[in-house]
């Protein structure tokens, strides 16, 4: 049941209606039933996987909380213990907690790895031994990367003592399976989501309308823009004959498609939550206005980035062996090189993991490492940029900032071409052709009307692009568009909503036997 299917729209309408009709204390159980119904409709087998994750996390989080409470009680009751005795006791409890955490992580990351990566491993082994190994029939549960990460974040927080364990199994089950965010995030933290997820909500016109407006905005971006430009992108990236300037066009089109697709999906998700008074974390902060790649990654898929930082980058960077390595490096390689070692190694692991998380293919591995290389190079060039900025006083000047933004978009879009082509060598060849065989003639001779997009498509896309850019600029300079519209007479707010609805229905990329394209991030 895709977000863009008629079935989902009907399902959502029923859930929203039911949510405000049942008594407040029945709202979260209703959401749990709806979430499991949503998942069951996708495939009954998926339920088994999500239940294993939920049950194992519930058992282990209970044990971790009990051990934390046991430690607190023991230390409070034995105040006379020496510092060393307390330290030994803490270490003993920590060891037991670590064993529970490790078991939970191995089980759940193991399920994720086996379901998602078995065939990738088989393909590579087969390639190494000269063929003969056949892929196995493997169920990959919908949204497994997202709900596994969200749940493992929760269990690590409980282990660290930053989060109390949820004793109610069914509440934890809802946190794991909440249907709007199940398939493409955002990856919520328990502490952020739980307060509004489980509390009762009365119908409030403003909250509900704001949620609906955001849902419609998400559908507009997805159905009118992303699904429309998709035809052009597919034509260009599926046929290697489209080289040179065509690759440049594909690169820009894909950048726009992915933005509208992913942010559109997240708008729908956050909007659904908002319509029910449930606050989900933001996943984007106008990423295409970033001035460098590091800033871009702080503003794109934010919840994934912070997840990797908190649960992989920091633990690796500050573990005892890494601290010893850092000290050794400073002593033997000098301060400047030595202090980079930790950051470089940990970042490498994070970007490798980020690439693998995105998909079981070498394209994604190379994509992750390409991001790593660019970020490290820009990190090394920072002193040079500083000197340049001091020498030429361009910082803060509009033309220079526009240059920085465009440079970042082009760089990120180019790296992202690894998503598009079937393998790594072809991606290198096609991107290379942009520089060696660029024929600007295709922009004037009508060639771009032969790639599955008509003049009318281009008109809709151009207007849509202008609207998205206008809304983004307004948000950047003046804040919430919805708030600004809401402060006008009611007709303006609701008129805009109606216009969005009409535009989505009229200009959505529907065809005969319409079946909207799956959201790109659903596959992750």
């Amino acid at each position: 049941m895709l977000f863009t299917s008629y079935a989902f729209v009907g399902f959502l309408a029923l859930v929203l209606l039911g949510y405000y009709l049942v008594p407040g204390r029945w709202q979260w159980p209703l959401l749990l039933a709806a979430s499991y119904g949503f998942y069951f409709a996708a495939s009954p087998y998926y339920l088994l996987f999500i239940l294993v994750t939920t049950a194992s996390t519930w058992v282990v989080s209970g044990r971790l909380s009990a051990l934390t409470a046991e430690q607190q009680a023991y230390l409070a009751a034995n105040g006379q213990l020496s510092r060393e005795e307390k330290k030994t006791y803490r270490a003993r409890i920590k060891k037991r907690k670590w064993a529970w955490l490790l078991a939970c992580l191995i089980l759940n990351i193991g399920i994720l790895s086996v379901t998602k990566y078995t065939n990738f491993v088989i393909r590579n082994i087969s390639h190494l031994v000269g063929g003969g190994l056949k892929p196995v029939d493997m169920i990959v549960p919908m949204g497994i990367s997202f709900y596994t990460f969200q749940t493992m974040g929760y269990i690590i927080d409980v282990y660290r003592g930053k989060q109390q364990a949820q004793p109610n199994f069914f509440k934890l089950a809802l946190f794991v399976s909440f249907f709007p965010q199940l398939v493409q995030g955002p990856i919520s933290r328990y502490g952020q989501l739980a307060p509004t997820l489980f509390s009762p909500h009365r119908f409030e016109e403003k909250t509900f309308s704001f949620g609906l407006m955001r849902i419609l905005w998400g559908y507009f971006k997805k159905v009118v823009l992303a699904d429309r430009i998709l035809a052009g992108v597919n034509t260009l990236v599926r046929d290697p004959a489209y080289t040179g300037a065509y690759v440049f066009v594909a690169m820009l089109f894909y950048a726009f498609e992915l933005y509208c697709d992913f942010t559109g999906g997240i708008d729908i998700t956050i909007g659904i939550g908002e319509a029910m008074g449930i606050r989900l974390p933001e996943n984007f902060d106008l990423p295409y206005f970033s001035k460098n790649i590091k800033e871009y990654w702080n503003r794109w898929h934010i919840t994934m980035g912070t997840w990797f930082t908190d649960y992989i980058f920091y633990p690796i960077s500050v573990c005892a062996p890494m601290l010893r390595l850092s000290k050794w490096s400073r002593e033997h390689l000098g301060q400047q090189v030595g202090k980079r070692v930790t950051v470089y190694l940990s970042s490498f692991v994070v970007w490798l993991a980020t690439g693998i998380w995105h998909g079981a293919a070498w394209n994604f591995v190379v994509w992750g490492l390409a991001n790593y290389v660019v970020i490290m190079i820009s990190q090394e060039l920072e002193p040079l940029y500083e000197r340049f900025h001091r020498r030429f006083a361009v910082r803060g000047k509009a033309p220079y900032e526009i240059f920085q933004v465009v440079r970042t978009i082009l760089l990120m879009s180019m790296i992202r071409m690894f998503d598009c082509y079937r393998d790594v060598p072809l991606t290198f060849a096609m991107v290379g052709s942009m520089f060696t065989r660029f024929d600007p003639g295709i922009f004037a001779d009508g060639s771009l009307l032969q790639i599955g997009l008509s003049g009318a498509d281009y008109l809709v896309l151009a207007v849509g692009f202008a609207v998205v850019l206008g809304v983004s600029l307004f948000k950047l300079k003046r804040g919430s568009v919805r708030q600004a519209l809401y402060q006008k007479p009611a007709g303006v707010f609701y008129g805009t909503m109606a216009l969005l609805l009409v535009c989505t229905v009229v200009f959505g990329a529907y065809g005969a036997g319409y079946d909207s394209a799956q959201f790109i991030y659903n596959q992750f």
Partner: protein
Amino acid sequence: MDELLEILRSLHPDVDFAESDRLVDDKILDSFDIVTIVAEIYDVFGVAVPAEEIVPANFNSAEALYALVERLEDE
């Protein structure tokens, strides 16, 4: 405290660390800075800051960071 301020100033010489109390919230310190600070604290004070202590509240000001180091030394 002086040693800690020296570590911080070596990363961002232009920031007034004695006064700032929103170092993480205002994105003055990023994740790369934080792991560098943790490594230097280990060198200078012999204290290992565990990952669970890497939260904005502990890194938002030099004072909070110093309190963290003292607490970890005590434990």
